[in-house]
């Protein structure tokens, strides 16, 4: 038998089965009995009072907060189903504890099953797997084509794509704003593409 509270007080005493009956247990018992007789307010009050007890059962066993909340809701539904089994005058603690532990074991089983299916992604995994060979692109000498681009576009491409400078570095070096550099690179690449196509068409 699991007492509702582990902290006995002077008003606590042994129940008919020898288990600890606390004032809180008696209060819950009264609410539960009233709920069985159709008092919906008492039922709501009982369920609200049961939530911290249920949460305490699951805390420490269920790591993820979402699993704990899922377990609490599952147990509330189980309490709703098991409500007709409570006998007035009997301690609430063992009744509530049995249902909560039963739902906890199901919740843990679901958690273990999920863990068995899921795995943490290892970033270093890709390095250990041989990668397929990628065909090298045909080499094209872009020098003559670059020289055909407007000065601003050519400089932007050289700094950002050839030398590998950051936008900020290129902006400081050229005195051109970052936005203007982006536009220049975009237009320069489009221009290069056109020149390359023409070049291939002609031979």
């Amino acid at each position: 038998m699991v007492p509702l509270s582990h902290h006995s007080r002077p008003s606590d005493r042994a129940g008919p089965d020898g288990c600890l009956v606390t004032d809180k247990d008696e209060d819950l018992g009264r609410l539960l009995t009233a709920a069985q007789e159709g008092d919906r307010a008492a039922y709501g009050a009982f369920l609200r009072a049961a939530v911290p007890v249920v949460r305490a059962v699951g805390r420490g066993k269920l790591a993820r907060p979402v699993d704990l909340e899922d377990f609490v809701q599952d147990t509330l539904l189980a309490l709703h189903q098991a409500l007709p089994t409570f006998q007035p005058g009997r301690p609430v603690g063992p009744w509530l504890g049995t249902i909560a532990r039963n739902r906890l074991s199901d919740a843990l089983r679901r958690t273990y099953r999920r863990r068995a299916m899921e795995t943490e992604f290892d970033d270093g995994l890709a390095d250990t797997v041989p990668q397929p060979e990628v065909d090298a692109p045909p080499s094209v000498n872009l020098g003559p084509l670059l020289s055909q681009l407007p000065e601003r576009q050519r400089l932007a491409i050289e700094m950002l794509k050839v030398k590998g400078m950051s936008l900020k570095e290129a902006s400081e070096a050229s005195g051109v704003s970052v936005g203007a550099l982006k536009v220049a690179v975009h237009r320069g690449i489009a221009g290069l593409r056109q020149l390359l196509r023409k070049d291939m068409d002609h031979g």
Partner: protein
Amino acid sequence: MADVSHLIDRLSAEGPSARRLPPPVLRLLRWAVLSVGLMLLATTWHGVRGDLSLVVTRADWLAEQGLALVTALLAGFAAISFSVPGRRGWERLIWLPAAAFWMLVLWESGHQHEAAAHEMPELVHLFCPWCFPVISIGSALFLAADMRRAAPVAPVRMMALLLIAGGGMAVFGERMIHDDLDAPLLVAIQVMAIVMLGIMLAPLGRMLFRWRRADRSGP
């Protein structure tokens, strides 16, 4: 995922799902009365055994029958106790001493009446093909219907015990009706068969006794 307070509001607005169940002892008595009803039903086509007035004077027969009934009732009580959360542990095990004592009495009877112990009917007639299924399956169904209204905290054990309880009732009822099923060895085989069947079919309890999966978000 619905909020806990929203779920509480919905459940409390819905109110209790069913009326309070009677205490386990009353539920057991109701099941026992229904099972006796099934035995009476079985006597309508087979009648009571002809030598009933004679065998009731035999202490060993009375002890065997009494222990069969007590074992069945205590197994039923244990099954009902499993369906009520927070019951005392001994209530779930109390049927075991009764079953062990029943086996001891059968063993002793077998030694006292060595000839009778080996009076085995044909293998096809280990059980009455009418009385046994009617009483055992019927009483197990009555018990299952009662337990489905309670809490499925231990479905596998609940299933095993309800089958043992139903089988025990059938052994008791069958021997009130038939006079050719008294051999202690036969009864021991019947009991072993019931226990084995109970263990084999126990996992079905997970399908029969389940927590309802309601929609948490509500309408």
